[in-house]
């Protein structure tokens, strides 16, 4: 019983922070509510206003099942056939080219700047 109460408390905290972020967005901050909420939540954890053990399980649950939350939007692709087919070639190619470019630039630069490969000897402690 106690653990499910903990869980509900954690979800409650996260939802309140999201609503706060969304409110700030609505009154004019150009960054979306979810991202604002993320920054606020991080600051609150860092400043120990919110303790990790209050929200750990709730956040873990939301993140583990995040894919579920993307399903309705993805199913919506079936209605976008018309819009997509008119510029199909341009959209697909730009999507793939840009995806590969971002992956390569970020990955290679990341490998350069963020440390040696994990399987290299002495990779530990070189954060």
């Amino acid at each position: 019983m106690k653990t499910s109460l903990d869980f509900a408390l954690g979800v409650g905290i996260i939802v309140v922070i999201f609503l706060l972020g969304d409110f700030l967005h609505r009154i004019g901050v150009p960054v979306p509510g979810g991202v604002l909420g993320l920054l606020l939540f991080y600051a609150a954890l860092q400043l120990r206003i919110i303790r990790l053990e209050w929200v750990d399980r709730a956040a873990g649950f939301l993140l583990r099942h995040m894919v579920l939350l993307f399903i309705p939007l993805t199913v919506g692709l079936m209605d976008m056939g018309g819009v997509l087919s008119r510029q199909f070639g341009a959209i697909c190619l730009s999507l793939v080219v840009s995806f590969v470019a971002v992956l390569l630039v970020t990955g290679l630069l990341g490998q350069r700047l963020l440390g040696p490969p994990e399987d290299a000897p002495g990779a530990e402690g070189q954060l």
Partner: protein
Amino acid sequence: MNRSFIPALLSVMATTSCYALALQLHRKWRAFPPIVGACIPIMAALWLLRVPYAEYNRGGTLLTWWLGPATVALAVPMYRNGLALRGMLPRLSLVVLAGSITGMVSAGVTAWLLHAPLPVIMSTVPKSVTTPIAIEVSRQLRGIPQITIAMVILTGVLGATCGTYFLKLARIRNDRAIGAAIGTSSHGIGTASLIRQSELRAAVSSWAMAAAGVFTSILGASLSFLLR
């Protein structure tokens, strides 16, 4: 009980069941992404039963709404790994900034080279970041939000299904580089796929995704200001 409440509840239950089923399949065949496994039966059922998407989505939005709180929840792996990441945050931000600029420019230029009309070009620019941010940037640039949404989701699915394999091909093996690349290129859908692989990858990816979102909204706002 309200009458419109029941079909909404039904579509939430159907979506959740398909998701549970897709997870089982994913456990058996690791290469099978849950997002694909869950969407195919739902699309097939809607098509066969002639249920319009808008009808299904009245329940769907009840799930979509939780993407906001789930984005907020990303702060937890970021915080938990904060100590390990602290020293690299300035470098990580630089890497993500380079990736975000690459994404916006390469998408727009490719569409432009293929003679796409201007609104389509603008719709491709914010396609690497999470849906709510991408929609806003697309609107600011006078793109077509529907095209942007479709591209955001397809990019995410591409990242979740082939991102890790592709990075392996390019000999990128560092967990932090993999996290940065997936978070910058394929936002929440890609990040969600890393959560089951490694906590460090997911943490870096969450950082990268949030930073890419912030950078892209700032760059998008500046670009729309320049084009005015």
